[in-house]
């Protein structure tokens, strides 16, 4: 057992967990942040993606201890003050989700993709960059549309800042 201290969605937390605890379990079981999902045991589906120190990583493939001292953002921390993040809004407006299970990980990965590529995104790049996120419902068509749409919105939002 160890005490893991980290910041989650802007809030400092301190949790006692077994050393084998994965970040995703700390989030779901200890912090009740159940928006982050688990869809596989082989680190491939991306349902568990969160941001750790600004990078989109698979929280099922990181020990809680590895995240100690880090800044973690989960899907629950993305909307600011009740206002949806442009990526969240774009997923809704483009029907980029059906059952919603892959959605939190998809959105967290997508935000990271736009951060890295800025306005230079095209369909092929988005499809390639979504390689680590599996969706069984949407056939990706509307997810790709949503990411491209959000990339535009995020650029506008940035320009306005």
């Amino acid at each position, binding site marked *: 057992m160890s005490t893991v201290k980290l910041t989650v969605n802007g809030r400092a937390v301190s949790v006692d967990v*077994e050393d*084998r605890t994965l970040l995703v379990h700390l989030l*779901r079981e200890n912090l*009740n*942040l*159940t*928006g*982050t*999902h*688990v*869809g*596989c*045991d*082989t680190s*491939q*589906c991306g*349902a568990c993606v969160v941001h750790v120190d600004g990078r989109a990583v698979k929280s099922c493939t990181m020990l809680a201890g590895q995240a100690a001292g880090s800044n973690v953002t*989960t*899907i*629950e921390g*993305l*909307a600011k003050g009740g206002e*949806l993040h442009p990526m*969240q809004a774009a*997923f*809704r*407006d483009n*029907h980029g*989700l*059906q*059952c*919603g*299970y*892959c*959605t*939190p990980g998809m*959105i967290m990965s997508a935000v990271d993709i736009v951060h890295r590529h800025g306005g230079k995104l095209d*369909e092929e790049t*988005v*499809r*390639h960059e*979504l*390689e680590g*996120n*599996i*969706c*069984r*419902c*949407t*056939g*990706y*068509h*509307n*997810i*790709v549309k949503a990411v491209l749409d959000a990339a535009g919105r995020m650029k506008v939002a940035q320009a306005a800042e």
Partner: protein
Amino acid sequence: MGVEGIGASVVRKEDRRFITGQGRYVDDVKMVGMSYAHFIRSPHAHAKVKGIDSAEAMKMPGVIAVLTGQQIVDDKVGNLICGWAITSKDGSPMKMGAWPAMAPETVRFVGQAVAVVIAETKNQARDAAEAVVVDYEELSAVADVKAAIKPGAAQLHPEAPGNVVYDWHLGDEAAVKDAFGKAANVVTLELTNNRLVPNAMEPRAAVAHYDQAEEHFTLYTTSQNPHVARLVLSAFYNIAPENKLRVIAPDVGGGFGSKIYIYPEEMVALWASKKVGRPVKWTGDRTEAFLTDAHGRDHVSKAEMAFDKDNKILGLRVKTYANFGAYMSLFSSAVPTYLYATLLSGQYVIPAIYAEVMGVYTNTTPVDAYRGAGRPEASYLLERMMETAARQLKVDPAELRKKNFITQFPYQTPVIMAYDIGDFNASIDAAMKAIDYAGFPARKAKAKADGKLRGIGVSCYIEACGIAPSKAVGSLGAGVGLWESAEIRVNPVGTIEVLTGTHSHGQGHETSFAQIISDRLGVPLSQVSIVHGDTDKVQFGMGTYGSRSIAVGGAAIVKAMEKVEAKAKKIAAHALEASESDIVIENGEFKVTGTDKSIALPMVALAAYTAHNLPDGMEPGLKETAFYDPTNFTFPAGAYICELEVDPGTGKTSFVNFVAADDFGRLINPMIVEGQVHGGLAQGIGQALLEGAVYDGTGQLVTASFMDYTMPRADDLPSFKLSHTTTLCPGNPLGVKGCGEAGAIGASAAVINAITDAIGNNKLEMPATPDRVWHAIHG
């Protein structure tokens, strides 16, 4: 159409919770005192269970109990059931072996549970499971369907000699023989419909709670049909009487058929929660999903088609072997029979059809309905046959299809189905136009100059949805009726709750069902809530599968709404001192035609509940219920055309274009409909190019994780070009047909037809992996 009514692409009401991480799935449910289950599963495909020693495990930290298959038998928990009785050719009933929730004596597939550990934490349960010693005596196993029926093959169940569950047929054998006698040309095709793993992204899960004082159970489960689950759990598994069992299917992360069935794990969780006196949670992991979720497809078929000298089809003969796995799952028996052979006429006039289907046990995971269920197998077979025939007869594949299309409706096929309406020429014309079919030869030549092999493939599918007329399915052996129910509660202030027996796990019912109400009553969508997924809230219903929710569930809502309207009109007429027949509903107002007198719905509702001034003899309240039983199936149909390129060096396929022209009747929310088509196409293309469950000779699943089983990813798929042609379904009040499975039914043949066109070799099985395509090119 209003901005929120039928035909409007309204964004989904349910989305906000999902995009903000507030969805509530079964694994998100926590209960005070909750314990955790971990199943001990057979590593062998076929073995005797000689003993289970849990002494060491019981001493491990946190362990509450280790429960075994024998205990479940001793407690008289029922075996799993198959709900559709099929009769063989010779009149004998199908031959089934028993399927206990945990195997007391014999395991018959890798992953079958033999015992369960209940512990304080998930990790402790898993740690202790490793300390349970199961003594197996291995038996020989068989995984392949053709091998299983050979003499000397391993035998699974004494009840089913030769591993044959049934040997069934449909159609007119003599007429087909006649047709082949007259044929100018006969085309033959042998093909495999590959086994698929559904892989909804949310693994199955269950949280069970037993309230000792009330002798009442609550089960949260990943189900597409919580009421059916409750019925089966109480009537057949003897868990508890229905009034003592509440089943809740909260947000469910995809189903595709795999969450229809009532699996051993849910049963065991319930049973165990009473035994240990604690709430029990079980959450499957992906490996368990691969090993224990019902798989789909897995047919081996031979087909022959007879043509006259004008290339008109004379007859079709099909022989299919269907692999059922080790046990008969809930609807499995119906899939390769009444959901498959009845669709073998496709979009074509085929005067004579004869189909034989042998259902076979093997030492593999049980197989049942997966998106499309039987209809993809029929469509794939027919559409590859049409393409093969066109090449053999040296005619354009689209032309051959058009020549044989059914154009008069209603049309009675020789295989039970009576198509009510359709316009197959309209769909194929739309698809051909969208892909510029005429310009293809020039594009192919250009690609060739660039060293690429380009191909085009057509697939014209038809499916039977809106499952199903209860009397008809009853006469064919179904154990249940397939009607649907709805209840509409207009609250005293005019907001509306609609309770439906269907279940939404991605389909967007909370939006499209509300649109139906909004359209009719003129209330804003925000004032309409759809309630589903809880047997304590919703009266009995049959759930969601077989693209039935709108056609059957939506129709039930319309029926209930008609009753609400009728009563509301009476109240309005009374309040406005007008004649009931003069009342019309417009934008949420009840108006007296030809006057400016009106009363708004909330006032009518208030009047209904205050009951101060109701017509004489009228009961207070404004709430109505309807049960709707369809009169026929619905028949969505369409044409898909795929254009792609094959890299001859690697055998890798890349899409150039994929067009779909579907006829789903009326579209309630086109955005949601298109999303359903996209998802279906992805699964159809996945089957064609990527996915395939592979067993080795000993019955081990080789593709038991995403490392080996290829799930479609974003970069495997193209963007799709969709269009719609419309013939309104005459069989239901909305004119809808259903759209959930179409893509999965029609897509795979289009892809394979395009690849075989590109490489000039028709010998290609699904999934057409680069390896297989390369071998097909290079011999």
